[in-house]
């Protein structure tokens, strides 16, 4: 967390155009191990675009990403996952027609060999899923339940479980509490705190000042696609951060 250690993830001068629209212009961001960075900004400020750049879903028009001090070019989300960079999307990015376990392991399914055939190991998927859900204290009826049968809160929990199932080093969460019941918000925030303790760098995008001021160590504001302000949580206030969101310093 101290400024002397290298950041786990650093983005420098990220710019992203969509046709004639400039979504991001020269944006910088860094997050250290065990630190939680809050990213705030109004709708359309470029928060989600920035996160999609970090996760490799969008390629930046300009700028570079450094992971543990080394420059990385992300061609796809698979690249960022391989580095230990996981994303929890606002739209959750779950396949409703598949069960919980298969969603958690989607794209990284454990297999077993049957002669020359590589078949999915469903019992292992189930076993690992149950163990992981237990660890995170997430309650669902069964790992075989289809995601489309779950409540919004349960889906968010599955999405977070998915992001942390593979020893992530940085977890990016886009509005992780937006669709949750109040009881479930506390659980998600607890989860973020315990991730920090294990040395994971967490980036949280949120509109909710309560979230930011409960779990974050540092907060940065985007305004119209640019860096607007940044401060340690201890040296700012809710009112100031809300002002940043609206473009007032």
């Amino acid at each position, binding site marked *: 967390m101290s400024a002397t250690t290298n950041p786990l993830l650093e983005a420098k001068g990220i710019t992203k155009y969509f046709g004639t629209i400039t979504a991001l212009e020269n944006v910088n961001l860094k997050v250290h191990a065990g630190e939680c960075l809050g990213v705030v900004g109004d709708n359309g400020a470029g928060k989600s675009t920035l996160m999609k750049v970090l996760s490799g879903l969008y390629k930046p028009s300009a700028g570079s990403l450094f992971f543990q001090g080394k420059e990385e070019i992300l061609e796809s989300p*698979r690249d960022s996952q391989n580095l230990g960079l996981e994303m929890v999307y606002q739209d959750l*990015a779950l*396949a409703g027609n*598949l069960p919980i376990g298969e969603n958690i392991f989607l794209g990284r399914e454990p297999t077993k060999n049957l002669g020359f055939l590589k078949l999915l190991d469903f019992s292992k998927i189930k076993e690992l899923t149950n163990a992981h859900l237990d660890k995170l204290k997430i309650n669902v009826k069964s790992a075989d339940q289809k995601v489309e049968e779950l409540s919004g809160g349960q889906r968010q929990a599955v999405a977070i479980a998915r992001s942390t199932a593979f020893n992530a080093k940085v977890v990016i969460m886009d509005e992780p509490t937006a669709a949750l019941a109040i009881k479930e918000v506390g659980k998600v925030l607890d989860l973020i705190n315990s991730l920090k303790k294990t040395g994971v760098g967490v980036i949280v995008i949120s509109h909710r000042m309560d979230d930011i001021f409960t779990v974050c160590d540092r907060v940065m504001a985007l305004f119209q696609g640019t860096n607007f302000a940044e401060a340690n949580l201890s040296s700012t206030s809710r009112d100031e951060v809300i002002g940043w969101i609206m473009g007032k310093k």
Partner: protein
Amino acid sequence: MEDKDKKIVSLHLKLMPYLEKYGILLLLVIMILVMHILQPDVFLSWRNVTNVFKQISWQSMLALGVFMVIVTAGIDLSVGSIMMLSLMILAVVAKAGAPWYIVVITPLIAGFLCGLFNGLGITLLRMPHPFIMTLGTLYIFRGTGNLISGGTPISGFTDEVRYLGHGRIDLQWLGLEKSQYLPVSLVLIAIVYIIFWIFLNHSKTGKWIYAIGGNPNAARASGINVNKILVIVYSLCGFLSGIGALILAGRTDSGYPNAGLQSELDAIAACIIGGASFFGGRGTVLGVFAGVMIMGILRNGLNLMDVSSFWQQVLIGSIIVLAVYVDVLRRDLGTRK
């Protein structure tokens, strides 16, 4: 009273997954029973049953291919034309005097390449919907088939070439009569369907095909190369149409310009009757098989009863609408309100 209601509700929630999985088989069994009652002497006779399987043999290949495409929330309108083009290439190669093992493999390669062409067109040319690409190739492939054959039928293949579509497996060693044989095409259907069942349900690629249909963004975010999977799916669909061409070559002993005309619609109909969803991500291989069987039995049964083919069209159309409506009702029951 409330408790009783709850019990009923929980019972139907428990039954729902089974109904969703096997409901279509129930419909198939009912159809078979009805046909048996209407035509007790003929319908379930060895001769007629094998006949049904021979009739559905090549359609079942097209339907399976189209099914995989529909699972990805796509559509392939070109399967009939792929089959016709593959058949024509087979016929031309056979007439040129190529050895049988070359002749047999050409429709498979041709079908695969046609499917690859579809897949690359959809992904590389970024077509707004597979409907457009495959509508285009529906014309392109059939036109090409007519160009290479001159638009006239080419007939007469060797027994080896005709084996898959026309071959018989003798069962006299089981003490059965000579007329009670097993069509090779039936064995082929079973093998191909089992292979694709394993592929779709037990391989990573198969799981990803369902994931793409369920939520392509989720698949992409999971690091799955969606375009690559789509190219594989359309190529396999073309390959299955190529197998269809090989079967048809055996059955008809001829490559003819009208082969597979409108059979893409039959294939889509079989998938829909079998419970596949146009929105993607839903449906089973078993369901497709049932869908193909239902269409085959309907046609066969109506032929046995001397119903005009015009009425057959009306009935098949009605069954499509009815099957999907039953599905809508089933989903209504399945969701808690």
